[in-house]
């Protein structure tokens, strides 16, 4: 294996480029039209265009990806997560084209990708599953049949997409009255997201935690389970904060849950990196939920507490190396790690997507902080894809230390031009239930419900006073520098000496398109002004 095509975009494509470079392998990025200038394209050794912006025309287009791999002379394909990462047809197409697919075999992807088949496999391996549908309902199944099954299982039920993931195509239904509309919504969303509208039902457990086990498997039958990740902080079934180890898992429970996960993976001949998700009840009983046959978004926290590079291991296992790690070291957490998923969403407007241009961005750094980002100043966050822009992780010797470092990092995280979930995380990490580790999968939705839309980033008196002072100084300095005012609403008194000729400069953007704040492609007013100021002082 010498050259890897990365069939993905954004932060995970950047992550894989870095792993390739660490291993001395060449990397090939792919991009849709709007991603030409993205970070993953510029960091990779080579890059290939794969079509228009719509995912089905580019990142979900198996044929174009295979063509790009062939044309670039790549001998392996890393699918990242999302898009075609769990698509057995794509894995099979790679194999037929003579490319190594960095992941499990198409057969295992198909088996574990069907949530109902995966449930059967788990049950056969002796692992308990959540009560639910034995066979899925395809797109043509009548709603009455689904209603009858829901009544048999007992409300509340969850409708889930057979091909689903990330909460897409999932709906919780409390009573029979709401079932019909929830079925329609789940089918439509599943059809749009995965091209498969089949759904199944599952009993909804009361106050469960979401705990998952990362594992690696080699071609020679060795499967190693890792220390669990706690992913209960979810908003509408989407993980937003993950940590490891779980505050709710004792050493004894860890051993049992890890061996259950390994038993399921072994029984299906799993190879590569994968994750088995469980629901953990308050009494310590756990149920198989599903298996993700790919690298997980939240893999960095496992890397932080085990010291292992999971992407490197994916590549090594795909090229046939043996998994010669000490089982005890991967199951014993060294300290504690937390990850916050920074999304381009406006937490003060119900977490609606907030696409647009990032005009300035400063990511935190410093001791024990890691930022896996696909964004930078000038990045245009498109409307076509998942709005995840970065994953911020922090490590500490203890959970409180990890929380304190995460809070420090969140304070430094500065993104301007679009809204992000950073203000939400600043609030969440200070929440009592989070600090105490006392939460379950519905805790965040309950907390948000209780806030009733109260904004997360309300400036206090001091902030407002400083903002007023800064805005006035800014306007004054701009005027002195001969810049025209930044727009119609800004009317200065006395007249600012508005100069028509400078209008173009302002119209072209402030601080300027694709120009990092401070990098200043224009050497006009601002820099000269600063120099004059310095001389005067």
């Amino acid at each position: 294996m010498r050259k890897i095509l990365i069939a993905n975009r954004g932060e995970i494509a950047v992550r894989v480029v870095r792993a390739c470079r660490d291993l001395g392998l060449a990397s090939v990025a792919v991009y849709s039209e709007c991603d030409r200038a993205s970070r993953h394209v510029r960091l990779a050794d080579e890059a290939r265009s794969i079509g228009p912006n719509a995912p089905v025309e580019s990142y979900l287009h198996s044929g174009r990806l295979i063509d790009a791999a062939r044309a670039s002379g790549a001998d392996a394909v890393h699918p990242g997560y999302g898009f075609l990462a769990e698509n057995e047809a794509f894995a099979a197409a790679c194999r037929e084209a003579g490319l190594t697919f960095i992941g499990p075999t198409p057969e295992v992807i198909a088996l574990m990708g069907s949530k109902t088949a995966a449930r059967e496999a788990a049950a056969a391996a002796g692992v308990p599953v959540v009560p639910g549908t034995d066979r899925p309902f395809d797109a043509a199944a009548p709603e009455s049949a689904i209603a009858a099954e829901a009544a048999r299982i007992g409300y509340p039920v969850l409708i889930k997409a057979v091909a689903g993931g990330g909460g897409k195509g999932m709906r919780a239904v409390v009573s029979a009255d709401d079932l019909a509309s929830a079925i329609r919504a789940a089918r439509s969303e599943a059809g749009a997201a995965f091209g498969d509208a089949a759904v199944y039902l599952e009993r909804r457990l009361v106050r469960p935690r979401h705990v998952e086990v990362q594992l690696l498997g080699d071609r020679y039958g060795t499967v190693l389970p890792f220390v669990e990740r706690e992913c209960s902080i979810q908003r509408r079934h989407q993980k937003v904060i993950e940590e490891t180890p779980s505050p709710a898992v004792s050493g004894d429970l860890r051993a049992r849950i890890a061996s259950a996960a390994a038993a399921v993976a072994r029984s299906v001949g799993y190879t590569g990196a994968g994750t088995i998700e469980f629901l953990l009840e308050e009494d310590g009983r756990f149920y198989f939920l599903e298996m993700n046959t790919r690298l997980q978004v939240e893999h960095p926290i496992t890397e932080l507490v085990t010291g292992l590079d999971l992407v490197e291991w994916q590549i090594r296992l795909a090229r046939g190396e043996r998994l010669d790690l000490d089982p005890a070291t991967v199951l014993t957490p060294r300290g504690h790690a937390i990850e916050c998923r920074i999304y381009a969403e406006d937490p003060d407007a119900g977490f609606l997507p907030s696409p647009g241009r990032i005009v300035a961005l400063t990511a935190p750094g410093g001791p024990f902080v890691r930022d896996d980002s696909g964004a930078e100043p000038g990045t245009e966050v498109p409307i076509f894809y998942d709005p995840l822009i970065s994953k911020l992780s922090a490590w500490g010797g203890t959970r409180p230390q990890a929380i304190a470092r995460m809070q420090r990092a969140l304070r430094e995280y500065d993104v301007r031009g679009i809204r992000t979930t950073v203000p939400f995380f600043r609030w969440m990490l200070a929440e009592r239930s989070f600090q105490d580790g006392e939460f379950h999968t519905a805790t965040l939705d309950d907390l948000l419900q209780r806030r009733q839309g109260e904004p997360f980033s309300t400036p206090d008196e001091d902030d407002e006073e400083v903002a007023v002072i800064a805005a006035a100084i800014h306007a004054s300095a701009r005027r002195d520098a001969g810049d025209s005012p930044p727009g119609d609403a800004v009317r200065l008194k006395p007249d600012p000496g508005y100069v028509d000729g400078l209008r173009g400069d302002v119209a072209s953007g402030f601080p300027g398109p694709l120009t990092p704040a401070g990098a200043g492609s224009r050497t006009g007013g601002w820099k000269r002004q600063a120099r004059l100021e310095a001389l005067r002082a």
Partner: protein
Amino acid sequence: MYEVETGARTRSVRVARAAGGYDVTVDGHERRIDAVPIGRAAWSLLIGGRSYDVGVVEARSGALTVYVNGRMVPVTVGSPVRGRHRGASRGQTPGIDRAGPDPGLAQTLTAPMPGRVVKVLVKAGDAVRARQGLVVVEAMKMENELRAPRAGIVGEVRVAEGALVEAQTVLVVIE
């Protein structure tokens, strides 16, 4: 002299160059501010020894978004022309644009974010209940059902399924 508006308040601010920064007078109270520009869109302010890292971004319609130590403060710098800027964009529910204060007048449903219209659930002439789903818009892989702001009759549907819409595009008019 600038009229600077933030939150519910408007302050009169006078700025004068001074040694090591600016003399800034806010509503008659003068202070020496140590201010250093960091590139074109950021400032380091030292006020009474406290350090403030400040970013300034021009938002839509010329208003500024000022970031104070990472916290966002919307600010409008302008003249007090009959309170023209005051509250111009406040007091509205996102996605619901009131055409008038009288509930008998037409209301529009607007797209709260850019996206693609996946489904139009109503047609002109339909009677709709308050909070009934009207249009499904997909943005960033999630489908969002946009609901009627109030009961009424659909006067006009301005988008077709499959259309790409910008934020604030009028989707449906309810009479």
